[in-house]
């Protein structure tokens, strides 16, 4: 599937801010099934400094700094991305979950995507005994990992209510679990906490989900939002596999990865420091549009710019 993504973030600082420093993770990364043809960031006003970096987990980070008073900041990220569908898997043929846990604990690699990086508590996902117990209910001894994680994926979807606005980034995981409601970020964190409680490697993925309008209705521009889901390391041969507990599906070719880490804190699209005392306002819109794939074999058909 090939997509054009437009992600618009508009901050209103509430009062002129003389200084602002931001770290942006808004440019999609390349993954095994994901190719980025074009990725571009535009700013208004123009920052005084712009530096592109790659963080420890391999995400694209753009640092921008402002040294002149400004009251609004517009970040416009555009990208063209191709995502391959997930190949069909037979969950019954995946290894027992205990094998996965033992493998991670004894890893000899500190590589950023090694499972050992994703079994420990992280900044926003602490080990939560209640979540671990609840998760263990679908992890009887010897159950194949894929089957068990799919069961957990479905269980979160069934038992949690999607309720925008009742949680924020600071809402403790234990409360989300207790009240069984929240948004995709919360569900991803709960799933990660449960899996890690059993010693299983689970990662957080921030990105976009292409949504289809209800039948017979036009697609609304900017109606999409940033999305979050979970990747679980399912053994050396299967590797990392994406699960979307918000929708009880496997992440396939509708899921576009922007950043990957232990939890939201590692993937936050905007982290910044501002000197202003105003009341901040924020508006975000995301637009994911399917575009026809270029005809292969035709010289010069790939007229998109090289990957950023």
């Amino acid at each position, binding site marked *: 599937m090939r997509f054009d993504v437009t992600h618009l973030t508009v901050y209103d600082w509430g009062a002129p801010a003389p200084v602002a420093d931001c770290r942006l993770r808004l440019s999609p990364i390349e993954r095994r099934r994901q190719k980025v043809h074009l990725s571009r960031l535009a700013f208004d006003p123009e920052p005084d400094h712009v530096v592109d970096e790659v963080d420890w987990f391999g995400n694209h980070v753009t640092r921008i700094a402002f040294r002149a008073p400004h009251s609004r900041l517009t970040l416009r990220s555009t990208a063209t991305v191709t995502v391959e569908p997930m190949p069909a898997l037979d969950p019954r043929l995946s290894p027992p979950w205990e094998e996965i846990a033992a493998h991670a604990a004894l890893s000899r690699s500190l590589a950023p995507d090694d499972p050992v990086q994703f079994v420990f508590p992280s900044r926003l996902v602490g080990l939560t005994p209640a979540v671990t117990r609840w998760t263990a209910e679908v992890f009887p001894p010897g159950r194949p990992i894929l089957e068990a994680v799919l069961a957990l994926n479905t269980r979160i979807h069934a038992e949690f209510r999607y309720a925008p606005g009742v949680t924020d980034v600071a809402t403790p995981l234990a409360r989300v679990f207790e009240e069984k409601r929240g948004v995709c970020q919360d569900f991803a964190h709960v799933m990660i906490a449960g899996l890690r409680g059993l010693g299983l490697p689970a990662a957080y993925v921030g990105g976009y989900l292409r949504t289809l309008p209800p039948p017979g209705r036009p697609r609304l521009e900017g109606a999409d939002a*940033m999305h979050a889901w979970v990747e679980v390391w399912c053994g050396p041969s299967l590797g990392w596999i994406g699960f979307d507990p918000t929708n009880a599906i496997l992440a396939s070719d509708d899921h576009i990865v922007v950043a990957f880490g232990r939890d939201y804190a590692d993937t936050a699209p905007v982290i910044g420091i501002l000197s202003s005392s105003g009341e901040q306002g924020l508006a975000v819109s995301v637009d994911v549009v399917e575009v026809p794939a270029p005809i292969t074999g035709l010289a010069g058909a790939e007229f998109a710019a090289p990957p950023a």
Partner: protein
Amino acid sequence: MRWSDGVDPALADLVAGYRTIPGVHDELMDADGRLRPHWLPLLSRLSRIGRPEIEQRFAGADRYLRESGVVFRSYEEDQDVDRPWPLAHLPIVLDAADWAVLARGVEQRARLFEALLADLMGHSALVEGGVLPAALVAGNPEFLRPLAGVAPADGHFLHLYAADVTRAPDGRWWVLTDRTQAPSGAGYAIENRIALSRALPESFEDLAVERLGPFFQALRGGLARAAGGPDEPRIALLTPGSRNETYFEHAFLARCLGFQLVEAGDLVASETGVAVRTVEGLERIDVLIRRIDADFADPLELNPASHLGVPGLVEAVRAGRVVVANALGSGLVEAPALTGYLPMLARRLIDEDLILPNVATWWCGEPPAREIVIRELERLTLAPAFGRTLPGILDSAGVLGARLTPSERQRYALKLSRRGIDFVGREPLRLSTAPVWDKGRLIPRPFAIRVFVARTPDGWRVMPGGLARFAEREDVRLLSMQRGGRSGDVWVLGARSGARSEARLLPEPDKAEIRRDNGILPSRAADNLFWFGRYLERAETTLRLLRGLDGHGDDGVVEISRDLTHRIALLLAKGGAIDDEVADDAVSLAEAAAWGPLSGSAVRLVGEAHRTGSIVRDRLSPDAWRALGDLRDRLSRRIDPLGRPYQVFAEIETALRTIAAIVGLAQETMNRRDGWHFFDLGRRIERAIGLARSARGFTEGGTDVDALDMLLDLADGRVTYRTRYLSGSARRPVLDLVLLDEANPRAVAFQVVRIVDHLATLAGHRQGDLLEPAERLARKLATRLETDDPAEFDDARIRAVELDLMAISDAVSAHYFTHGSPLPIDATRP
């Protein structure tokens, strides 16, 4: 032969009843009840001095500490409480040979941890080579991914390392914990030393106790070397601030070693380096000694919730533009999970056998170790692998297997089999004991000593002594000042004789270079001094207005007219002291404006003065600080309703006198450098604004004699007026005296002249060839006030003066101070 045979009976009396704990090593007495010989000289000296004088001397040591401001700050019932420093009055005495082993062992660990950090934060060959499990690094909260692979600018992770040690039952030293993150306590060790060496000067000299001073000089030398360049090294100590429990030590070390004491708000950082914001602009820093945990050091790349960190610091470190001591990431090797690997790592990394053993520790991520711990849990301690509390599972102190019920042990066994990676099992430890002085006799108490090692230009150097900490009870597993306990000195008996008193620990006073500048004033300090001045003056202005409600100054008590009460009420409301709805009754009005909840009430203003003052406390005299505290406490008390109205006005008078005392003390004691200029600038601007506002309030809408008299009182002008004018108060001469008379210390013009003087004295008062905006505005205003005719001063003109003054204040802020504190940007939500 018993030890007491032939021993001085006074000495025998001193240790009579001293009972060691079976199976626990004691410093003073061996298992057979014999005194260890290296204690005898100290004890015989004490027995010769005699109990009454000993008590006096120890009281003197306590007094010294109190007077030097040595306190331990703890946080209790939502308040910071300064507790007296709990000094154990007897030192722990160690003989030279015993010490040599300990010192060698601690120095070896410093080298080992440096090598280990270089590997783990570098290419992690130990992990890739299968020597250490990756989980020990990946699961360690001190593994700072943004700095993995980044070598420190000076090539070193550790500049100061400390180990907490105690003795095994056989008398060998063993290590309880390693401190590599930001070891604290060295400053307290000096203070303990100074206090004790003053209390027991004869013993200190007789025993040739090793001095601590040279160690600190060497530490300073090491940090100066790290700064690199040929210039005077620019070294700052980053403290979390005055509310931190060890803030005293931060301030003390900074002062002793000549480092600038800074908080996050003082610093700016980026890939070009780290600098202090000062009133003269940015001043570069080469070495930053950090007393905050690494995770809090940079909200942009580490913990985004941190208010103690400097945004961009990680970037500056990555760019190699600043040396952080200890380097960010140094805390990695404190993890208990690494302990069991240290003997192997010592052989591998530095090719030596580990001299000091640790308490036996098993990391449960390795299946064989996990089996041992599960099997022997009843006898072991279970603790978090990385030293941090596992919420809802295990707190950082761990749990004694013996204290668990069989079913609890079973539950832990399940947790261990699921996530052994989070736990270590440890032999339970028993601290060895040493004597403390307790009501005239000696008793054994469990202790640990923190031993410090510094990187110096000549290699690692161990501080010959340390910070001893004693538990109050005999059976303890943890030592914490927060939970009671005492702190003491460690005397290492020297080979040399004639050690000099440690009072001269710091560089010889006559060798110090003469310096007149007090260093460059950080903007944050200047900002707070300025507002300290403004709040104090604003409180005074409000209180003076309230005093007016109590009748007319030297004329005795007079009924206050409704019109005057109304004018005062309007002014108070304008100043935010009261709501508009408060009754016209003078006493209720005074009470509301003095003690009310609004931000302009006297009690709130004094609270703000106290808050801003506390931030610059090190620049205020102790007397002024105490008087400010008294003022706040006194005003915070509710007044007795029965005593009204007399008490209302009596309290207002007392408060005014206290403010005068504080200002007087500040004037008398503050050095006339930049800091004082900002304090007085704040007062002058506030006073001028208050007077201009009062001048309008008491003259607008027609002239009233009572109101003009009140205005004269506010400007302390009544006596002058009487000598100048025979007639009663009239508008034009009163306004002249209050607004324009440069000779009247309370006139607006007088304040403006001072404002101009202050601004002209500040080093940053020029921008190229131009004057900075505040000074330009102030000079214009001064000229206008000098040349204006009081007759022309209608309400609008006075209002214009008030606005000018506010513009001057804003211009001072914009030019000299930090632009507010940076706030995090709201997170976007997926």
